[in-house]
């Protein structure tokens, strides 16, 4: 997995590409840890290039949703493919994350 990182205003936009699973979730975790550790602002994870997620990936997102809230930041998600959206629905994660249809919608929120 490759994670692209950019800054849009006060929002860090992370775009993970490929699979987010047990073998590689620490790559995304390092990006999230760096941003929340520096108390650096809000985070948007653009999931348009993510093809697959397992519970290891979900756990990292949940952990950093909590950490963001602790420092009064936001962790937003956008642009999920339908198969990943289904995993979020089954997990109940659609009810606890801010999920947007597009990057533009998230950044405008």
């Amino acid at each position: 997995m490759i994670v692209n990182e950019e800054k849009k205003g006060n929002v860090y936009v992370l775009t993970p590409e490929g699979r987010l699973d047990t073998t590689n979730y620490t790559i995304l975790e390092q990006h999230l840890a760096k941003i929340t550790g520096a108390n650096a602002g809000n985070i948007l994870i653009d999931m348009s290039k993510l093809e697959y997620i397992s519970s290891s990936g979900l756990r990292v997102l949940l952990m950093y949703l909590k950490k963001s809230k602790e420092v009064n930041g936001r962790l937003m998600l956008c642009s999920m493919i339908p198969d990943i959206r289904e995993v979020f629905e089954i997990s109940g994660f659609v009810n606890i994350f801010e999920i947007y249809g597009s990057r533009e919608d998230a950044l405008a929120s």
Partner: protein
Amino acid sequence: MDQLRISIPNRIPELDRLRSFTEDAAQKWEWSPKMAMNVNLILEELVSNTILYGYTDEDEHKLEISFVREADTLEIRITDDAEAFDITGAAVFTDHDKPAGERRIGGLGIHLVRSFSDDIRYERTQNHNVLTIRKNLT
């Protein structure tokens, strides 16, 4: 009936080989992308669980994974010599809808496996866990 089989050691990087095995089966048997993703997820959750929590020693153990294709179903079987663990009877957290701060982190993988499987059977035979999962192809 058509069958594919793989044996992997109990090491997390081996999940990559398991993924390739599943992708080969998906191509050979022309699964939909959704079917391939679901089978991949079921295997990753179960096998990673066994590798991370199933053994009390540091020795190398083998896990056997097989696919049996029938007319309308895929049978996934995982056999291992880990500690006895019956996923069909395991407790699963049910607080998915609670606010983030009140949720427990864990049990999620089992919940996903159960949701994406059409039938799950567990047996303990000759000190081995044998888990058989049915997934409808239609």
